[in-house]
């Protein structure tokens, strides 16, 4: 028999309101403020290196990766943490993308760097409003029924976009600007770099907000709804309200993802936001682990980068285009070998924490 206190069960009793893994205050401050700013600066430096060393194609893929990270983590809030099954997430992304794109082309001429932040927020708000309208009636449904309602909604958005001439209809909306390049003395920040700064700003902001949320009392509520709705109600939790809120927040960030996507791609067509886009998000969430933000980040990176930087060169070498075959095969194998996703419900820091769950 071991005398490990964790195994014999005589754990020190935590106080109310503190998580078993709670850190002392200075360290928590470091996590909540210094870490995101540090990450931003580090990524900004990495961006300079990328700017110098890569071509436009690689840069575009990286921007798409940023959009996908926001897209996947926002869906994880609904599908992973709260246990609802939404399969129309691309609809909200489309609303954010088109809103931001429209504002930057038709409404504001020569937008400045900071204008793009407002465009994205506007996109997020439009998506959030739509999330509220869809969520309020449909979140009383469960499982398959909710999935079908959200699927229907995603298609409605796509068809509306397809039939609205003001935003290009089926031809699409093109000439969407990126933030202009900035010249500081000898230093030139190209428009890719400015766009990249914007993208990582949103990625970090999304992650910080979602991380803080799921690790708070609110997050506990989300999880309780996922685990057992009846029990959650018996605890005094208004489960419908929780689900609608989560859906609105998730839609907001999907809208932000859309804005990031729109200014990276510089062109939008309604077909971009079809059912397959929603499925992509679900793949990322499931692959990363339902209920793991860092898992979604990793999965979004893998799903975006793998087809472009691994499968495409493979095609060039072999001369046979097996990209989709290999990609699908990889997904199948992954789900058989690791059905809980890359991280399951854990987060990346849990992996090197000694007394991890």
């Amino acid at each position: 028999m071991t005398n490990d206190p964790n195994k014999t069960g005589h754990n020190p009793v935590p106080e109310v309101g503190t998580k078993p893994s709670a850190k002392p205050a200075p360290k928590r401050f470091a996590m909540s403020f210094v870490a995101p700013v540090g990450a931003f600066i580090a990524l900004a430096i990495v961006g300079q290196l990328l700017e110098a060393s890569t071509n436009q194609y690689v840069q575009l893929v990286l921007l798409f990766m940023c959009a996908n990270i926001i897209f996947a983590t926002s869906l994880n809030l609904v599908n992973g943490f709260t246990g609802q099954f939404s399969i129309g997430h691309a609809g909200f992304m489309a609303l954010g993308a088109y809103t931001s794109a429209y504002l930057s082309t038709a409404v504001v001429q020569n937008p400045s760097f900071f204008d793009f932040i407002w465009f994205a927020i506007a996109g997020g708000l439009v998506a959030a409003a739509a999330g509220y309208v869809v969520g309020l009636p449909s979140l009383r449904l469960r499982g398959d029924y909710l999935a079908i309602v959200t699927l229907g909604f995603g298609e409605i958005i796509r068809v509306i976009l397809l039939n609205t001439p003001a935003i290009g209809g089926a031809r699409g909306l093109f000439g969407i600007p990126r933030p202009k390049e900035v010249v500081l003395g000898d230093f030139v920040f190209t428009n890719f770099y400015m766009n990249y700064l914007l993208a990582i700003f949103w990625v970090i902001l999304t992650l910080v907000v979602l991380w803080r949320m799921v690790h708070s009392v609110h997050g506990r509520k989300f999880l309780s709804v996922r685990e057992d709705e009846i029990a959650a109600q018996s605890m005094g939790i208004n489960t419908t309200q929780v689900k609608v809120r989560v859906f609105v927040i998730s839609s907001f960030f999907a809208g932000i993802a859309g804005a990031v996507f729109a200014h990276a791609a510089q062109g939008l067509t309604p077909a971009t936001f079809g059912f397959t886009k929603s499925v992509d998000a679900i793949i990322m969430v499931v692959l990363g682990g339902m209920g793991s933000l860092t898992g979604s980040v990793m999965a979004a990176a893998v799903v975006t980068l793998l087809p472009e930087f691994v499968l495409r060169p493979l095609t060039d070498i072999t001369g046979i285009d097996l990209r989709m075959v290999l990609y699908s095969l990889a997904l199948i194998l992954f789900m058989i070998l690791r059905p809980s996703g890359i991280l399951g419900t854990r987060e990346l820091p849990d992996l090197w924490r000694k007394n991890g769950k």
Partner: protein
Amino acid sequence: MAKPILEVKDLNVFYGGIHALKGVSFEANEGEVVSLIGANGAGKTTTLRAVSGIVPYKGSVTFRGENLANCPPHVIVTRGMAHSPEGRGVFPNLTVMENLELGAYIRKDKDGIQKDLDHCYELFPRVKERLAQKAGTLSGGEQQMLAMCRALLSRPKLLLLDEPSLGLAPLIIAQIFEIVKKVNSEGTTVLLVEQNARMALKVSHRAYVVETGKITLSGSGQDLLDDKRVIDSYLGGP
């Protein structure tokens, strides 16, 4: 006469076309343990769920003088009624501590919660040993204890317990019922739903027998234990 804390009158519940409860009426007085006993599908759980607002019903439920018609479940909890659901309903992927904190979700008084928590650890020492563990890794008995502990943390006046003995070993069942008695002696009224009629009747002040959506018998726990019909149908043998 004792003051009724819960009065249920002519409760009717429909699941689609199925008339699951056909006019159930009963009451629980302050400080009592009241049991609803009956076979599978009799409507015991449905009654409990209607009382705590989880399923819609026709009829009236009056709790501490207040009519609870159309009151959603999360509001009913704040009125002082806690429901420990059938099958325990612990949150399996949350730690025991997190489960307990959710039990005190409606409360803001940290000191009071800590006091109640300490008291719960006294009642359920096993729960204290498992605080950092995920609830899904607990044994059935420990999960039941956690569920009761969690329900008590909302500091209810009335505790609804749905099948606390479900799937547990006789020794654990005896422990659970000891705790029910203790909780009751400390002033919480308990409404118990049980298939284990013998155990339930032993701890109950009064009990009702539910059959196919109706109450067919009622009386004190001891009376029902001695009742020929109850013995034949629910207790088995002499």
